């Protein structure tokens, strides 16, 4: 999960968004309609033109380009699933809402029949307006601000958990893990980066946590500077509290600094529970090697037990051997999966019929955590959720929820000095 998404989670959790009940999908309509000869004939009219809008330059360039990997590997998988071909039209939002809006107009002007994107909530919201005005379906790959699907749009769909879901699942799954391992920390130290993201997260956690009967107390909350080059004081302070575990909201650089400091000060907490980025990223593994083992992160993720996850993972491994499959790839791919599935069932690129087909999506053979992909009346998939992933031997292992877990959590963390 990206820091932006978690940030959305924290802040919006304060608002206490009420989610509506799921509108029942049209049963197996997707499969039935998709395989009917009539549908195939109509869909065979040509590939569906899909405008993919991602921040491939600007401050979010790295993330946008990572999402693009999910696009690059999609075609053969969709073909294997018997889905119609997509003609991808790329648009760079340049990490900017104004450009995102203009690019959406451009792609639609160039013939895009469906839009996908745009990772960032602000950019996605800007695109959503254009899609709505033009009556073009827009499938959001990643963006967690709940309000996007609460604004009353008819053409906007999102198969990504909202911010509230992300935070709620994090605490729910902590309880599940405690039960699974038969142990739980009695006190935690909450360490968070002291910028707007970290502060918003701290606020959100403060609102959501009391709703759960957590077995631990927060012994101390320690905020640290984002640009800190040394976190020895913070770790010393945390260690001195006698806390059993660390609850952290950090980014990549400080996650590495914190780990190095834990090693240096010879303190291995029972667990590191992360509700932010950093601890599951490729660079964390590459930099720390075996010292990267142990942390558990709570993120929207793929379900390793699903068949399509294996397919996507294999395709990713083949195309990008040095990259671990992550949220960006999964949800971008799934947005295209929704597009292709809807096109197959609609049998036409006509925006109205295509939108209705997207609305009646009921994909059970998918990749991400949750029951599948289907949208409620507001266009939100409210069955999609988080996973708890633990770093084990350089791999990311799903340890909760139970339905998706492939291993039990390693608890407590292996001591740093015995690795």
């Amino acid at each position, binding site marked *: 999960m990206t820091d932006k998404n978690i940030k959305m989670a924290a802040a919006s959790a304060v608002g206490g968004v009420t989610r509506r009940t799921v509108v029942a999908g049209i049963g197996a309509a997707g499969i039935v309609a998709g395989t009917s000869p009539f549908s195939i004939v109509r869909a065979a009219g040509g590939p569906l033109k899909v405008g993919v809008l991602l921040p491939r*330059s600007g401050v979010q360039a790295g993330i946008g380009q990572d999402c693009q990997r999910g696009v690059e590997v999609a075609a053969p998988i969709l073909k294997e699933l018997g889905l119609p071909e997509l003609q991808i039209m790329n648009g760079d939002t340049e990490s900017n809402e104004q450009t995102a*809006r203009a690019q959406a107009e451009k792609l639609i002007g160039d013939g895009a029949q469906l839009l996908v994107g745009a990772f960032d909530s602000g950019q996605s919201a800007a695109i959503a307006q254009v899609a709505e005005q033009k009556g073009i379906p827009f499938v959001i790959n990643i963006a967690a601000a709940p309000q996007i699907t609460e604004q009353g749009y008819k053409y906007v769909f999102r198969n990504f958990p909202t911010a509230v879901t992300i935070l709620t699942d994090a605490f729910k799954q902590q309880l599940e893990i405690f039960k699974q391992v038969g142990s739980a920390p009695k006190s935690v130290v909450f360490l968070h980066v002291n910028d707007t993201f970290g502060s918003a997260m701290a606020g959100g956690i403060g609102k959501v946590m009391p709703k759960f009967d957590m077995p631990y107390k927060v012994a101390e909350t320690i905020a640290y500077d984002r640009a800190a080059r040394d976190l020895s004081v913070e770790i010393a302070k945390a260690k001195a509290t006698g806390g059993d575990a660390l609850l952290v909201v950090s980014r990549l650089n400080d996650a590495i600094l914190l780990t190095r400091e834990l090693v240096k000060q010879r303190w291995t907490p029972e667990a590191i529970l992360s509700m932010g980025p950093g601890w599951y990223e490729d660079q964390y593994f590459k930099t720390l090697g075996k010292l990267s083992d142990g942390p558990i992160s709570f993120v929207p993720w793929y379900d390793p037990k699903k068949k399509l996850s294996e397919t996507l993972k294999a395709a990713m491994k083949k195309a990008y051997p040095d990259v671990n499959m992550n949220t960006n790839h999964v949800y971008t791919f799934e947005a295209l999966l929704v597009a292709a599935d809807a096109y197959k069932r609609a049998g036409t690129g006509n925006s109205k019929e295509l939108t209705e087909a997207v609305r009646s999506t009921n994909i059970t053979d998918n990749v991400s955590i949750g029951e599948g992909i289907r949208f409620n009346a507001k266009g939100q998939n409210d069955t999609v959720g988080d996973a708890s992933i633990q770093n084990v031997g350089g791999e990311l292992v799903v340890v909760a929820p139970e339905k998706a877990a492939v291993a039990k959590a390693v608890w407590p963390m292996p001591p740093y000095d015995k690795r």
Partner: protein
Amino acid sequence: MIARLTDGLPPRALALLAAFAVVMAVAPFFASDYVLSVLIISLYFAFVGQAWNLMLGFAGQLSLGHALFVGIGAYTSAALFTHFGVSPWAGVIAAVALSTLMGCVIGYLGFRFSIRGVYFALLTIAFAEFTGIMVDNSAWLGGSAGLFLPVKNAGSIDFLNLRGPPILFYYLILILTGGALVLCRFLLNSKLGLYWQAIRDDQEAAEAAGVPLFRYKMIAVAISSALTGIAGVWYAFYYNNLFPESTFATGRSVELILGTVVGGVGTLFGPILGALILTPLGELLTELTSGLQIDGIKTFFWGFCVVAIVLFRPSGVWPWLAGLLKLDGRSANGGGR
């Protein structure tokens, strides 16, 4: 008053201005939706650039935090509309009042304590940054999760609540840009404008000549922040969502002033021309580089073009173009106003 506005302008300039106004007025009937959206963004930058130009180009006070006033205007009107259903036409009054007040606070601190030049610019950045952090931590304003305006009936025009298709926002920003041009021309040709220019050109000399520096600099900041606050209201209702991280960012402030720098700081038509160069240039480069499949290549070329323009036309494109078209009028100093 009209005579005062047109005084000193050659007939050729007036004719070109009229032709430009007509082209802009009828443009939506010929432009595609995409081109219309590019024109809308260009005009927005032209309007804000004009407001910023008033402060630096006319009165010599450098602000690098003008996103602050856009943000205050945007958040004030959006919050009033979202929480209380207040029409933006009423909300704009509160928005202008608040952004002007903030401008005056910054101006007071800067001018009373003789904070000048880059230090004054730093002061404006600091105010933008801490206001952004305050909004980021305000649940009422949506915090970092953003403030979203309801967008129902996107296809129909609800003029009272500024809800409607892009063409509504096009004409609104066109009127605002035209109005700002007329206002700036009027101010520049008044005693106020002369005082500002005196302050800009040599503050000490102006003071020695009896120009009350503090008062006139405060007036410049107040008008500039008020106009920028209005732009914020337009921005909020056009984009329908606000995020403190991007709204108040220093990068956004730089974006707002770039058109004016390219067009010509201190000229009346520079901000408009600069905005009409930079935004379409960006889109043109997107088109030209899309086949290259190299992420960020467009931004590279765009930066290259901006550097080239600044290198070859250090005073901005408008003074050069105005000279070329013989639109200079009576004032050599204000070439091409």
